[in-house]
């Protein structure tokens, strides 16, 4: 008796029973589909949130990063003294230090004149701090007074900046301060900011007159080639005050993601949504399997009287759960795929359908159906064949 036969026959019977009662099959599939879509959407929003939260630090071209220990995340930094960053230059492995200034500001849309908040990044353009080709190309022009560059991936409420630039319109206000938009680049927005602009450090201080050149938000350190980042980090720790934290590139990315996962309730909300979706789906599948077993208990008793054993029915229930998982997952996936597309085109949040996500959701759904099957199997034990006749 091989493993194929021991599963094939109960699975075939499960399949025949499922397709015999179409309305109930459709109800069960809808339950799984619902759970599937819910989980896909929760995961999609969560991943996209995380991905976009790190879109700026991802492009930072540096080896070590200094932030104030009270900075929860890059979009809400606590400033620290520029001299603290300069002190790092005392380490022989440090080649260059670059201060980064950032702050939220209002941006007046050039077409509608409506003001909306976005993030302003200020740094010396000669340093190529952001590894974004479009910005590097315009670094000389960016040194001019009152010039900025605009992130094309900002929300559409800021206006069709690219088109307006092409038509010759390039003047607007940031924080009620008149600036000229030199061009656009592509970075990506986060849940913290609906858009981004990049400007020089000097222009930044003009846009924000109450900010001082001595108070910086992030300090970027570049090391000489062939020096150890980890070793330098340890040695810098002794050189710098305790209130600045030193991160490597990977660590600062992680720091940003962890903020959204822990400090902000957003990660929790998405996880909660995922779990709720799975529980609702599980209850629906359990209900279906449960009534199935109740309705078929005479047939199970008959099969028992013929010599079928308990494990056959256990396999049948699991096979039913598996079939429902697959039948619900396929349309659930297709629907979610369309919804991802809709989200990308309507609310401009990047929601890629990745293989990882597909596998994760399928495993979740399988697990959900298996648990429902396990619960339903308890019901089977009550079928004593002799009492049925």
């Amino acid at each position: 008796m091989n493993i194929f036969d021991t599963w094939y026959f109960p699975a075939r019977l499960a399949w025949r029973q499922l397709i015999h009662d179409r309305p109930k099959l459709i109800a069960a599939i809808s339950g799984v589909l619902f759970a599937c879509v819910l989980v896909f959407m929760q995961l999609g929003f969560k991943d996209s949130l995380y991905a976009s939260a790190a879109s700026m630090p991802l492009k930072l071209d540096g080896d070590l990063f200094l932030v104030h220990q009270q900075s929860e995340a890059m979009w809400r930094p606590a400033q620290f003294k520029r001299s603290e960053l300069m002190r790092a230059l005392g380490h022989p492995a440090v080649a260059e230090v670059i201060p980064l200034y950032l702050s939220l500001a209002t941006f007046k849309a050039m077409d509608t004149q409506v003001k909306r908040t976005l993030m302003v990044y200020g740094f010396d353009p000669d340093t190529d701090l952001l590894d974004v080709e479009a910005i590097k190309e315009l670094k000389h022009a960016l040194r001019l007074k009152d010039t900025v560059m605009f992130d094309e991936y900002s929300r559409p409420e800021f206006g069709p900046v690219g088109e307006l630039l092409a038509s010759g319109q390039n003047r607007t206000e940031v924080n009620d301060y008149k600036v000229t938009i030199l061009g656009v680049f592509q970075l990506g927005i986060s849940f913290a900011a609906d858009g981004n602009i990049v400007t020089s450090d000097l222009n930044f201080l003009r846009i924000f007159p109450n900010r001082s050149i001595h108070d910086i938000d992030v300090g970027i350190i570049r090391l000489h080639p062939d020096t150890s980042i980890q070793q330098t980090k340890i040695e810098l720790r002794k050189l710098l005050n305790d209130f600045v934290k030193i991160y490597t590139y990977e660590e600062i990315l992680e720091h940003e993601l962890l903020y959204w996962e822990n400090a902000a309730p957003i990660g929790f909300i998405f996880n909660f949504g995922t779990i709720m979706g799975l529980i609702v789906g599980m209850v629906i599948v359990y209900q279906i399997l449960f009534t199935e077993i109740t309705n078929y208990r005479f047939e199970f008793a008959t099969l028992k009287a013929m010599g079928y054993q308990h494990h056959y029915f256990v396999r049948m229930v699991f096979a039913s759960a598996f079939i429902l998982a697959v039948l619900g997952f396929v349309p659930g996936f297709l629907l979610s795929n369309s919804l991802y597309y809709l989200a990308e085109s309507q609310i401009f949040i990047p929601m890629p359908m990745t293989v990882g996500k597909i596998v994760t959701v399928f495993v979740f759904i399988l697990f959900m159906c298996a648990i429902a099957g396990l619960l339903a199997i308890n019901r089977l034990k009550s079928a004593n064949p002799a009492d049925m006749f």
Partner: protein
Amino acid sequence: MVIEVNNLNFSFGSGTLTQPVLKGVNITIQKGEIVLITGPSGSGKTTLLTIIGGLRQAMNGSVRVLDKQLVNSTEQDKVKIRRQTGYIFQQHNLLKSLTALQNVCMTLEMYHDLTEYERQYRAQKILAAVGLEDRFHYFPEALSGGQRQRVSIARALVGKPKIILADEPTASLDRQSGHEAVEILKQLAKESKTTILLVTHDYRILDVADRVVELEDGVIKTV
């Protein structure tokens, strides 16, 4: 000796609610014999049949079926007996989501050494033998009562059981189809020397029996 029941006692419930049903049943049935059990309703006929078929556990006396002691037996022993026994129920008890052919195949699907082709072949042959060669792919709800009971006879016989246990197989059938069903059962059983123990109220079918016994007050009386 295919079935040998000695001094079998059986009661439902426990304590003061104990309701004795079988009070020292003795019966011996030879290979190939067709024995009918009659008796008033509630006299314990179904209970006796389920004990002999390995569906119900007895604690007292001796029940030897195909040389296996069923009193205080293990689940595995009972499963072995069930597999060598064809059970025909009062209601046809067919699986409603399976066709006639698929229902009959269920008996054979327990044996994985058969090929799907052999299963189909044997099931078709036996369905033809009960006169249903044109109803292979009908679901039970599309069949008449007599046809359903003939499918369930085919299902019981297709595994070539040593014993057929039938519990009022004609109770839900009209006179004509009831007699037909029992005649078919008798004929097929005689060909293969299968032992039949058949419970019935139906005096119209007593003529198929080699022997008729009556269960009354929990004991067997020869008529």
